[in-house]
């Protein structure tokens, strides 16, 4: 087990967003987290990355050496321990170049080798940008002037610049065309093959989920209603009910 989410509950004011959510993620696995709007997927991500503290429950990250309790760590510590993430709303620094945006992530990388010295840092950033196949001609154009597909790739590059063991994608395919989605999912799978990272993948595009994920967790109204293989998920009556509605007799 790589990531262990145990009985997470979270409520905002009187509104319970997550109730006793628990699942596991194996090393090198890609797991989809799906569910209707407002099911609590982004809240779950925010708890795993330390933005919110859970009301109860625990999140453990297992690395080679040790077990980390993510539920009581601060976000930047979690990121430095090797949890990269992308954001639902594209959030990059628009007045910086593509390269500099990736550099922002790369300079906080402490895991692989200490990337100190400008030459090493530059090489590492270039490696990350190549891994997400951004055209080198575009590296030094301002981020506000590149298309949305490249913006998503920048977020991807910035996440993997932390040399993560776990990457969380929060609706990275939203706003992309079918072709661009396919390219991005192929990149994610290729990166997984190469680096052996685990991936949590929140997405509304079910086609992309089917392409990428080995397993899937379905969340509805803050509760896990399904956890298992991707092909069984869409045969499960509870999942169908959550997505399409109950069949009228």
């Amino acid at each position: 087990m790589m990531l262990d989410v145990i009985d997470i509950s979270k409520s905002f004011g009187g509104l319970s967003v997550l109730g006793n959510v628990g699942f596991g993620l194996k090393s090198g696995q890609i797991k989809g987290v799906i569910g209707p709007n407002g099911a609590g997927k982004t809240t779950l991500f925010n708890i795993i990355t330390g933005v919110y503290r859970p009301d109860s429950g625990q999140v453990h990250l297992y690395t080679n050496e040790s077990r980390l309790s993510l539920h009581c760590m601060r976000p930047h510590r979690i990121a430095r321990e090797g949890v990269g993430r992308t954001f639902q709303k594209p959030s990059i620094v628009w007045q910086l170049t593509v390269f500099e945006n990736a550099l922002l992530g790369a300079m906080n990388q402490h895991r692989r080798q200490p990337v100190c010295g400008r030459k090493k840092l530059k090489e590492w950033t270039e490696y990350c940008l190549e891994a997400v196949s951004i055209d080198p001609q575009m590296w030094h154009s301002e981020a506000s002037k590149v298309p949305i597909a490249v913006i998503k790739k920048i977020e991807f590059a910035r996440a993997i610049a932390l040399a993560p063991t776990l990457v969380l994608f929060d609706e990275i395919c939203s706003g992309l065309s079918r072709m661009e989605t396919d390219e991005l999912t192929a990149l994610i799978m290729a990166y997984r093959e190469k680096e052996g990272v685990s991936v949590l993948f929140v997405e509304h595009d079910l086609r992309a989920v089917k392409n990428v994920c080995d397993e899937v967790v379905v969340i509805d109204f803050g509760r896990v209603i399904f956890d298992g293989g991707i092909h069984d998920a869409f045969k499960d009556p509870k999942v169908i009910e959550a997505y399409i509605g109950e069949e009228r007799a």
Partner: protein
Amino acid sequence: MKANRAIKAKGVFINRNRYMLLILLAGFMLCLCPPFLNTYQVKFLSFLLINILIACSWNLIGGFCNYFSFGHGVFFGIGAYAFAIAWVRFGIYFYLSLILGGIMSAGVALLMSPILRLKGLNFALATLALLEAVRIIFQKWGFTRGLKGFDAGWKFPMTLSDQHFFYLIVLVFILMQISLVGFMASRYGFASAAFKEDELMARGIGINTTVCKILAFILSAFWAGVTGAIYAPMITYISTQSIFGINWSIKPIVVSIFGGIGSLLGPIIGGIILNAIDHFLWERFLEYHTLIYGILLIAIVLFLPKGFMDYKDRLTRLFQKKKPYRPIVDLD
């Protein structure tokens, strides 16, 4: 060549070496000036530089980190008072007292750093309240010669000539710019571009935003304190009314906005132009000069909302023919 830009500059907006060279050159030129100027002009230049110094220090926290402080005068004032108490009451060596002024300010900034949790308007209000609170403490406290209500203030003996003060200010100016560029070119300065845009994102990619902000705040307060400490003996008399007035908090904001927030050169250029306008108007239209000054300010901010550093963009937009839209990548 171009590929190396990001790493070489690493500081976000400017090439570090070129900027340092520019500052050293400017400082050198300024040092050559005094023999050719009369006392009044030297004094005018000193006041101009003081304005620039405090604006630059404000720009670090207000411009680069997006924390609009309306109480930057606090650090200026604490610097001035710490200098006064150290030099006049305890007889500490002059230059050491100057640095002590800066250190006291930085210390207060460190103590006050929890207010950096507030954002936007709340932060502005908190700093304004801080200014009032510190002013009242200094007014009522015997140690600072507040004498319960009416101000005794501090008088300084004339020890240094105007020219001497001028050289001192130029030296501080150069040191300050070097430290600012150094900070902005470091990973903390680079990170400030990220948390200015989106703090959640910055923390999510491993930036310790708290440390970055506190460092910027302390550095900003330190230089404001040193500026205050020099200003105090230069005008030979300080009191809480003159030092902790809202004036010293508003001035750096106006100068920075005018020159261009969040650029290293912005406050310098803004300070020069604003002081020049102010001086010119004061000479010609003594009675109405504040009125005309105000109207000019409004007009300039109206036409250059991003500050004077934006003039290139504006001018090119005015005089250039509209280019046809050219997509950056071919989509086929």
